[in-house]
Each structure stands twice: as C-alpha cells, then as structure tokens.
C-alpha cells in the first residue's frame, strides 16, 4: 500500500518561444496555471458538497433538536443529544452487538482468507478461473444474498436447521436463530464472512506474490514443510497487509447495516430482533432517524460512531507501526 508515496512533480514544460503572440501567451499561461485546477476541481467540489459538508453539518444537527414529525421542535439542544446517548440502553446494546458481530465476522474471515490465498498461491491450472470464482460472493448484491440467508436460517424449514438435524441437533426443537444474541450473531457473521473471504484472499494473494523467492530458499535450511512455511514465513511477511485488512474490516464492520437489516423477518422495522438482540449502531441510527423521526439524536449517534471508528482505527494504526516497522 503506497498510500503516501508522493513523487516529486515532473519538470514543467518549456516556455513557448518569444515570438509567440500575446494571445498565445495568455492561452499558454491559462493552460499551465489554471487548467490543472480545473481538472481536479470537479472532485473537490463534489466531494465538498456530498461528502465533507454532510459530515460537518451532521455535527451541527447533532447539537440541535431536529425532528421529522414536528417542524416546530427546533433550536439548539446543546449537549442534550449526547448526554442522552450515555444513558440510552439501546445505544450500548447496539454497540455491544456491533462489536460482537464484528469479532465473529472478522477473525474467521481473515483466517479463511489466508488459507484460501495460500491455496491460490500455487502454480495452478486455470489460475484466473479460481481467482474469479472466489469473487462470486463479492459481486452478489448484499440484499440478494442476505434475503437468501434469511431463509437459510429459518426455524421451521430452514436449511441451517436441516444440516444441524443431520448431525443430531434440534430435531425435536429446531433452533430459532433469530431469538438469541449468540445465534443471531453467528447467522449474521456467516453472511459477512461469506461475502468478504474471497475478496480478502485476493488482497493476501497479491501480497504473497510480492514476497521475494530467496526468503523461502533461505528457510529451506530449517526444513520447513508447507504448513510451517505458511505460518512462519508467508504470514509474517504479509503482516502489513493483514493489518490493513483488519483496518478495512473495522471501518466496514462497525458500520454494518445491510445484513442485520435484512435478516429481520420484517426489515422495514429495523428492530434487529424482538429485543434488539442483533441491532447494530447503523441500524439504530436508521431507526432513530427515520422511524422515530429524531434526526438530531440520530446525528449525535453518527458522530459517536465516527469517534469510535477513529479510536479503533488509531489503535490499528499503532499496531501497524509496531508490527510493520520491524521488517
């Protein structure tokens, strides 16, 4: 990831010959001084309006009363929305759920991605075929796959319970996956894992292929078999990418919305279960903002989530420096 590799600017083109007319000179100056800004302007303007402004304006909204059902309830709220957040059991519950699902989905996801990347990191017949094949889940629309999984995890005729019954579990009383925290978290984590394993495997694969061959040759002296080769050479060598994917999963995982939303048998309610057993923060923001019409409070939640993501990402950045710097 050469995110910060900024190269020096190329030399500027030679000035036109002195015989050029005034108009040409003006045109030349315009073309070299102004046009570059015009080229980058669309990005900055559009991003400012639809990316940056909402984020900042969100902070303003979070300090106000702002309701969708009552235009008269307006005005500054001070820290009211934030102090309410601290004592809101629903918020803490959602935060707990978000982290729980996050861990259940990140750890197996990255481990399995490593294993698959290691498989792909061989001389194979049909290299492209296998690489494309692991991307099937990635291109499947999350709404489509989640609706399928919602059916997969049904109590009475769901396939998950059928598999369980094959190994002797729950033949009499099939498991109601949506009823409890642990089971609903597993179901949702399964969907997230399914979708992202292949994608991460390709990220790892590209890092693995960048490992210099002599590293492996040197290790041959120790007599490392394929398994030890993977865990003792390959994985340490690609650690920066691993940390990078952890950061990515953090940002994605803490905003998890689609899967928990559509896992509900009545998605429109955004409840995340009868007792909010799997309601994530992003879902709660949707519910508070667009079902309870309390945009001010929803904005405060968004900002709180933003700060949480920043903190977690900062921790990850520290880890990156510590582990990545050793190389």
């Amino acid at each position, binding site marked *: 990831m050469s995110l910060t590799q900024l190269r020096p600017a190329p030399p500027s083109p030679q000035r036109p010959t002195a015989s050029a007319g005034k108009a040409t000179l003006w045109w030349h100056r315009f073309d070299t001084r102004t046009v570059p800004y015009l080229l980058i302007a669309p990005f900055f303007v559009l991003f400012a309006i639809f990316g940056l402004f909402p984020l900042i304006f969100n902070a303003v909204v979070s300090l106000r009363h702002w309701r969708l*059902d009552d235009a008269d309830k307006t005005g500054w709220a001070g820290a009211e929305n934030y102090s309410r957040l601290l004592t809101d059991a629903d918020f803490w519950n959602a935060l707990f759920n978000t982290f729980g699902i996050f861990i259940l989905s990140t750890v197996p996801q990255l481990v399995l991605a490593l294993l698959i990347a290691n498989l792909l990191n061989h001389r194979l017949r049909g290299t492209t075929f296998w690489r494309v094949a692991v991307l099937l889940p990635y291109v499947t629309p999350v709404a489509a796959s989640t609706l399928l999984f919602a059916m997969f995890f049904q109590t*009475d005729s769901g396939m998950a319970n059928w598999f369980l019954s094959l190994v002797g579990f729950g033949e009499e009383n099939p498991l109601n996956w949506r009823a409890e925290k642990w089971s609903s978290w597993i179901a949702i984590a399964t969907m997230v894992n399914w979708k992202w394993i292949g994608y991460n495997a390709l990220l790892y694969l590209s890092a693995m292929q960048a490992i210099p061959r002599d590293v492996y040759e040197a290790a041959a002296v120790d007599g490392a078999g394929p398994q030890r080769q993977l865990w003792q050479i390959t994985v340490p060598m690609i650690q920066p990418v691993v940390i990078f994917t952890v950061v990515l999963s953090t940002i994605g995982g803490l905003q998890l919305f689609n899967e928990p939303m559509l896992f509900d048998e009545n998605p429109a309610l955004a409840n995340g279960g009868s007792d909010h057993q799997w309601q994530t923060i992003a879902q709660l923001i949707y519910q508070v903002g667009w079902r309870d019409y309390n945009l001010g409070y929803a904005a405060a939640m968004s900002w709180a989530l933003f700060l949480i993501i920043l903190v977690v990402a900062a921790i990850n950045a520290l880890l990156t420096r510590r582990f990545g710097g050793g190389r």
Partner: protein
Amino acid sequence: MKFVGRRALRAAAAGVAATLVIAGCSGQALEGGGDSEGGEGQITLKVNFFGDMGQEMIKERFEKANPNIKIALNSAEFNAHHEDLQKKLVAGSGAPDVAAVDEGFMVGLKNQADNFVNLLDHGLGSAESRYLPWKWKGSMSADGKQIGLGTDVGGLAMCYRTDLFKAAGLPTERDQVSALWPTWDAFIETGKKYTETSKKKFIDSGTNLFNPVLAQQPVGFYNEQEQLQMEGGPKVAFDVSMKAIDAGISANLVSFQPGWNQGFTGDKFAVLACPAWMLGHIQQTAPGTKGKWDIAAIPGGGGNWGGSWWTVPAQTKHAEAAAKFVDFATQPEQQIEVFKTVGNLPSQPALYKDPAVLDFKHEFMSNAPTGQIFAKTAESLQPQYLGKKNGKTRESVERVITQVQEGKLTTSDAWPKAVEEAGKAASS
C-alpha cells in the same frame, strides 16, 4: 486488454458529459413526483396504501369513469407506509396525492391537519350522513377540518378451521363454536382441549390475542389526555395473551411475517382473531385453504381493530382530482364491492341493511354470512381513543410478547418489560 475497445472508450469518455447533461435535463423522468403530465389535461394521481383495500378494482372503475385521470398505486409495509407519509409531510415534498391512513396513526396525523387537504372545502361535507358518527369524527381535527373519508371498520370475529376442529373432536357449526367461548378464559380452555387431542397449536400468536382484547377495552394505551395508561386495558389484554402462551396453545409465530404466512398453509394454528380486513389477508396468503375456514363470534363480544381512511396530503397539485378519487372510492357501490371481494367492512351503517351486504355469503369462508356477522359487531362498537403514538407503542408491546414466545422472557417478567418499552415508545 480487450475489455474496452479504444473506440468504445472514447465514445464513453465523450459521452460522459452528455450523459450528465441528459440526466440533468430529464430531471422530470428522474424526479417524477406525482404530477407527470402525459397528453392533454391528463393527470396521474399517486395513491399510497397498505394491505388490501380493494384498490385495484377502485382504480379500474375510477379510470373508466375519469378517462383523463390515471391512478398509480404504491403499497408498502404497514408501519413503513405511515412513517414514510409522516416523513414526507414534514419534508414538504414527496407525499402521494392520496394516502390511506390506519386508525392507529390517524390521531397523530389529524393533529397536523394543515398537512392535509380539508375535504370539506371540496364539497365532501355531505358525506357525513353516510358514516358511522365516530368514524366521521375519527378523522376530523380539533378545529373542524375533515382530513379523510372512512373506508372500513375492523369489527371483530373469530375465524376457525372447520377441518382441524373436526379432527380434534370440536364442533364445527358457527353457533356451536361461538358457544364454546363466551369469555377469553373459556377460549383458552377450548384451546387446551384442542391441543391435547390434536397435538397441534390452537392460536397463531400471543399478539393476535393481545390486539383484539385490547380493542375491547374502554381505554386503550392512551387516554384522551394523551397519557399512557398501561395498567388499564393493556394490562388486561397482556394478561390474556400471557395466559394463552403459558397454556401452551400458541404456535408462537410473529404476525404478518413469513413464518406466520407459512403457518396458514402448514396448519400451524386453528383459530385466528379476525377483524373483517383479515379475510383478505387469509385469502391472499393461503388460497389453498379455501372452504376450510368459518367465522364465529369473538370471545368477550364486540371490539374494533383497525380500519382506515383515504386522505389527501396538502402537497398534492391535484387536490380536486384527489378529492374526487376519495369520494369515488368511498361511494357505496365501491365499498360493497370491496366488502365482497376483500372482506373489509364498510363504515357506512346504511350498507349494513343493504341486501348486497346482508345476504352476502363469503365463499372462501365456507359461505359464512360475513355481512350479518360483522355488521352486528360494527353497530355496537364503542370506539376507543387511540393516542398519537399508538402505532409505535403497539409495536413495542408486540415485541415484548414475541420475546416471551421466543423463550427469552418468562410470562411473569414480561409485564414490567412491556411497560418499559411502551414508555420508551411514548417518549420517542
């Protein structure tokens, strides 16, 4: 790299600007709104509704009678429909030209009567004589604006499966079945007997006892001062549903969700509390059970659950046409047809005496005389005041009942939790 040819690429690059311009210009197509003009004087009314209100038939007839007006129907999930409407009323744009509103949300909306067209301004005041007085008042704001014309009322009865009753050795005749359960306690006892013999569950879910029992109470969640009154009617209704769950007669499904719908076809329950509008739902969900259902009296007698109005949000650009549609949809001819095809009971007492209603036999429901059955309950209705936050409150308490059904809460711990959740909903 064969994927994008050079030529195609250039064309694409050149086309971008053009595309954006087109996207901007055809803003009409992209933006829509309820007023897309097509042809001379041709207007389209956007009509939002939920469930089944006989809208297809009304649309067809209305378009025939008014060739210059097209109807665009748009349905959504029950809660989402109302919440979306509320959102758009305040946003000041995006609301449909005509919107159905259920009684559970009416009180909240009629407090914002300015967001609706006052139908009295469009000469619909004369419709008052058609209506049950409480239905007419139900959609009238405190300052005398009429924001909707009533469609149906949800007079209560109890639907039951004759085939399953027979197999369990219970009577199958309407009157005999009604005699089984004069009270809710007797109803639960009957359920126990059924479950014992058939080894099947009797009712679909606790929430479908809670709602009708609550509907029979003089005061519901809120009193007319908008104070939450959990210890009154809600407690009575909640206790009945807990008792039924404890008795082991509930299939513990969640109403209006996929598992529940499958329960209809899988014989997962034998009775279902039936407001008139539920008949439409049964027919659509389980067409295969035709002729296996019949209708008896509801325990406890009477009660109203649900029932709607057609309203015209003030944002409409076609208030006149929209009012015309509302008037048309609530005319006796249409209301009788909706009653016959869907089951919804009209809110116009004159129709209860109409032979078309009185003599009607509902083929799907074993030829039950639904006109007589529901008309009888409708006339004796005692309307209950429903608070502004009634919809949200009900959904919260229903979720607590679901938690009990999922085995996460004992029936004794459930009530405090229900009070807590209702309190949250009231202050949300």
